[in-house]
């Protein structure tokens, strides 16, 4: 830390007395230890001002390069006085911190926010997407041979967004009111939470059960499995029959679940492991469809039940029952009034 001090001292040679004063403040004069307590904290060592400080220092360096260094520095030193020289050291320290911080931040950003690592998963043609959508409803028969899973993220991502849109449409048509949050936030949270959360959980289980599947493949498989959910919800949110929903749930939901289960079975060895994996996936997938239907469509069903319920008879006037005692009181009163008249 004494080196920048020495360099600073070498640059401005004129105010020697002030430089000597600075040295006097150091304990055990001549040692490399700088007593930070004596540093003037107000002279530009704050981190927030580092950008301006850096700019100013760049300008100072440019001035030196043009040969006006001597006069400029002297004016600078005389203008700032004692504070300027003490602050210079602090400025350089803070400047180094700024540089290091900036370098680390840009390195971290280029490493984690580099979207290009996802580029190969979006390289698809429309025919491929259509073929995979249709295949996701057809269970494979050959489970002794590991089935190929396309490691693609475009189709699953679009299917999740489609499910969000269908949910939103369903919530709007049924006038669902979400008290803690927004409709959009709920829909996105539900769908993305299911896709990412269940994929991660199944990947973890697959790791435990020694299944041969990667995370991207799991995401892709589950994403394409949502195609059945999209179809079922799209139809049953618009045509409101309970029995129709159960048929769609079993047939369409069941087909897409069977497909996913078959692919997983083909990639797992051992009966117990196969049972664990496939049982979990089937349960989660089918229950999610049930949940989506019942959680976001209750209001419409309630209204329909009211409309289709038994006919309520119109309001009828019913005579009030007057007890026998009051009849006697009425008669006595009438007689009393008649007597007085």
């Amino acid at each position, binding site marked *: 830390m004494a080196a920048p001090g020495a360099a600073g001292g070498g640059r401005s040679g004129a105010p020697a007395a002030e430089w000597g004063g600075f040295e006097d403040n150091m304990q055990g004069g001549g040692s490399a230890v700088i007593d930070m307590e004596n540093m003037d904290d107000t002279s530009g060592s704050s981190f927030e001002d580092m950008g301006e400080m850096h700019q100013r220092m760049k300008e100072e360096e440019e001035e030196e390069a043009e040969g006006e260094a001597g006069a400029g520095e002297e004016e600078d030193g005389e203008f700032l006085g004692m504070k300027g020289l003490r602050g210079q050291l602090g400025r350089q320290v803070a400047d180094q911190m700024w540089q290091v911080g900036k370098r680390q931040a840009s390195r971290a950003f280029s490493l984690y926010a580099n*979207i*290009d690592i*996802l*580029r190969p998963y*979006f*390289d*698809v*043609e*429309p025919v491929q*997407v259509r073929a995979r959508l249709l295949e996701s409803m057809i269970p494979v028969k050959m489970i002794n041979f590991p089935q190929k899973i396309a490691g693609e993220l*475009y189709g699953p991502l*679009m299917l999740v*967004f*489609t499910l969000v*849109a269908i949910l*939103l*449409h369903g919530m*709007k048509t049924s006038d669902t009111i979400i008290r803690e949050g927004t409709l959009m936030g709920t829909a996105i949270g539900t769908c993305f939470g299911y896709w990412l959360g269940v994929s991660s959980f199944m990947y973890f289980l697959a790791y435990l059960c020694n299944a041969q599947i990667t995370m991207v493949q799991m995401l892709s498989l589950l994403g394409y499995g949502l195609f059945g959910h999209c179809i079922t919800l799209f139809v049953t949110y618009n045509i409101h029959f309970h029995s129709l929903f159960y048929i769609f749930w079993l047939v369409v939901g069941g087909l897409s679940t069977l497909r996913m289960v078959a692919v997983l079975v083909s990639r797992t060895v051992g009966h117990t492991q196969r049972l664990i994996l496939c049982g979990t996936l089937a349960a989660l997938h089918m229950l999610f469809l049930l949940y989506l239907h019942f959680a976001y469509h209750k209001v419409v069903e309630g209204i329909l039940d009211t409309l289709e319920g038994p006919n309520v008879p119109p309001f009828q006037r019913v005579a009030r029952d007057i007890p026998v005692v009051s009849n006697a009181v009425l008669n006595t009163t009438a007689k009393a009034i008649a007597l007085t008249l």
Partner: protein
Amino acid sequence: MSLCFAPCPRCQAEEQPAGGGFVPSDMLLSPQQSYSGSILQPACSPAAPSQLGYVDGFDEEPPLLEELGINFEHIWQKTLTVLNPMKPADGSIMNETDLTGPMVFCLALGATLLMAGKVHFGYVYGMSAIGCLAMHALLNLMSSQGVSHGCVASVLGYCLLPMVLLSSAAVLFSLQGTPGTVLALFIIGWCSLSASKIFTSALAMEGQQLLIAYPCALLYGLFALLTVF
């Protein structure tokens, strides 16, 4: 302020100005002269000879709209391109980032929604911003050449114009029945076809127009939900 965003033949044909002239000489000589050059690139006008160091007087200042880069003629031309999804688009439309037209259309959408009794300006701006970010990420992943935020925002904003027609219709009659749904679906298709046409022609992704049209349709579907309900 220089108007030259890209080197164009007119500038290179004439002398280079000394000191980077601010005011194009033809604007000084004939203020009524309209913008020249193609609609998709701002006109590069030659600067005055070296006797003009910099602009000083009020009379020599360029008009405000020219300084702001707002050119109504260009905006009108681009609007006509967007309104006809069947006409093949010019790929060079992505070279210029013009956010004035999109801002006008977003304001128009908010105003027509206001006339229908819904104050949803915040939702329109928020959904536009998030939609632009998402489309920018997706287009960068799917195309071999990159695309900037401004271009994506510009294209998506221009293609929002049919949605303004839908929300004007919502002022006159309720869209919550079958005819309203059919009209909304038609408008969504129109918007997304225009947007995907411009994106595919600019980013050279010919076979993938449907793949780009679908996310655009989802985004415009959100606007339609806002309009209908």
